[in-house]
C-alpha cells in the first residue's frame, strides 16, 4: 500500500512538471523492468533495448495514467507486451537469417553480469525458458521470477486466473522435465 501511495505521489509530481519524480520512479522500477525483459528475452542487448523503450513509454504516457490499476502492474503490462513483441521480431529475423551465432558471441561480450558462475547459472535458466512458448514463458516469468500473484498476472495479461494456473502448471512441468533430462 505504501508503495502504491508513494507511486501516486511521484506520478502527481511528474505530471505537474517535476522531472526528478520521474527519475525516482525509474530508479525504483528499472531493475524489475530489466529483469523481466531479461528473463523473457534471454540476453542483455534485447533486455536493454526493451528496458529503454519501456522507460520512454513511461515518460510519454505517465501523464495519461489513470490509476485504474497500480503503477507497477501497468509497468509490467508495458514491459511484458514489449518483450513479447521483441520475441516475435527476433523470430522473424531468424527466419530471414538476419541473425546468426556471431550475434550470440557479441551479446555475451556486452553482458552486465560479470561473474562467470552467475552467467552460467542464468544461461542454464535461459536455455530452459527458450524451450517454452512465449505466452507460457511470460506467465512462468511473472509467477516464478517476478513472484506476482495470479490476480496480478491476470490484471497484466487479461487472462483468467484458472487459465493462468493451468498455463503455469504446464510451463513448470516442461521446465522440470528439461532440468531432469540434463541432470
Amino acid at each position, binding site marked *: 500500500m505504501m508503495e502504491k501511495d508513494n507511486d501516486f505521489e511521484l506520478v502527481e509530481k511528474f505530471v505537474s512538471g517535476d522531472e526528478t519524480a520521474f527519475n525516482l520512479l525509474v530508479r525504483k522500477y*528499472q531493475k524489475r523492468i530489466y529483469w523481466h525483459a531479461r*528473463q523473457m528475452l534471454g540476453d542483455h542487448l534485447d533486455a536493454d533495448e526493451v528496458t529503454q523503450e519501456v522507460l520512454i513509454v513511461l515518460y510519454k504516457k505517465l501523464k495519461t495514467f489513470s490509476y485504474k490499476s497500480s503503477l507497477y502492474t501497468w509497468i509490467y503490462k508495458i514491459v511484458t507486451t514489449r518483450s513479447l513483441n521483441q520475441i516475435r521480431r527476433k523470430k522473424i529475423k531468424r527466419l530471414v537469417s538476419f541473425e546468426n551465432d556471431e550475434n550470440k558471441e557479441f551479446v555475451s561480450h556486452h553482458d552486465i553480469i560479470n561473474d562467470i558462475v552467475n552467467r552460467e547459472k542464468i544461461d542454464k535458466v535461459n536455455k530452459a525458458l527458450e524451450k517454452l512458448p512465449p505466452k507460457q514463458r511470460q506467465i512462468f516469468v511473472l509467477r516464478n521470477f517476478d513472484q506476482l500473484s495470479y490476480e496480478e498476472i491476470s490484471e497484466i495479461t487479461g487472462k483468467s486466473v484458472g487459465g493462468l494456473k493451468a498455463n503455469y502448471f504446464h510451463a513448470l512441468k516442461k521446465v*522440470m522435465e528439461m532440468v531432469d533430462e540434463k541432470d
Partner: protein
Amino acid sequence: MKKIDEDILKYLSGLMNNEEITDFENKLAGDSSFKERYNQIKEKAGEFSSVREIELNEAYFNNLLPRVHNKLIKRKKVKLIREYALILPTVITVLLVIIMSILDRNGEIDLPKSLASEVVNNIDDDELADNLIKDYSFESVLNMSQRNGEFEIFIPENVNLSLNSISQYVDFSKIDYSQVENISGTELEKLYNNLSAITFEKVSK
C-alpha cells in the same frame, strides 16, 4: 513424468481444489519420501527464481536514465525534423509558385510590354520598316505575312525573306504596330536587340 511429481507441480501451481489440497498436505505430513521429493522439486523450481538475486553491473543502471533522456531528446529532434520535412516542401512549393508567378509576370507580361513600348516609342514606323528590311535580313529578325489584313510578327525559323518578297505581301502603310504587344517575351527581346543594333549602327555612322 511420474504421477507423484505431477501432483506436486499441481500443488505448486495452485491447480488443486480445497479437498485435493487437504489430501496433499496430509500426505506431505505423513510420508517422508513424498516430502523429500516435494522438497527436491520445490528447490529446483526455486533455483529459477533465485536468478533474481544475481548481482548486476550497477554502472549500467546508473547510466540508464541519461541514455533514456538522450534517446528522448533525439526522438524529439527527429519528430521536429519530420514535422518540418512535411511543412518545408509545402512552404518551398508555395514560395516557388509565388516566385515563378512574379518572374512569369516580369518575363512574359511586363517585360515584353515595356520592351514593345520602347520599340514602338523610340523608332518611328518608317525607320522600323526601312532599317529592318534594309540592314537586316529577315531570317534572323522577322517574318511578315498578311492575314486578314493584319500585320503579324514572329521569329522565323530558317526563313530567308528579302525586302522585295516582303513588299509583295505587305502594305506598310497599313501596318498596325500595336500588334508588337502580342509578341512573346523571347521574340521581342530578340527583336529589340536587333533594332537597337540598327539604331546604334546608324548613330555611329
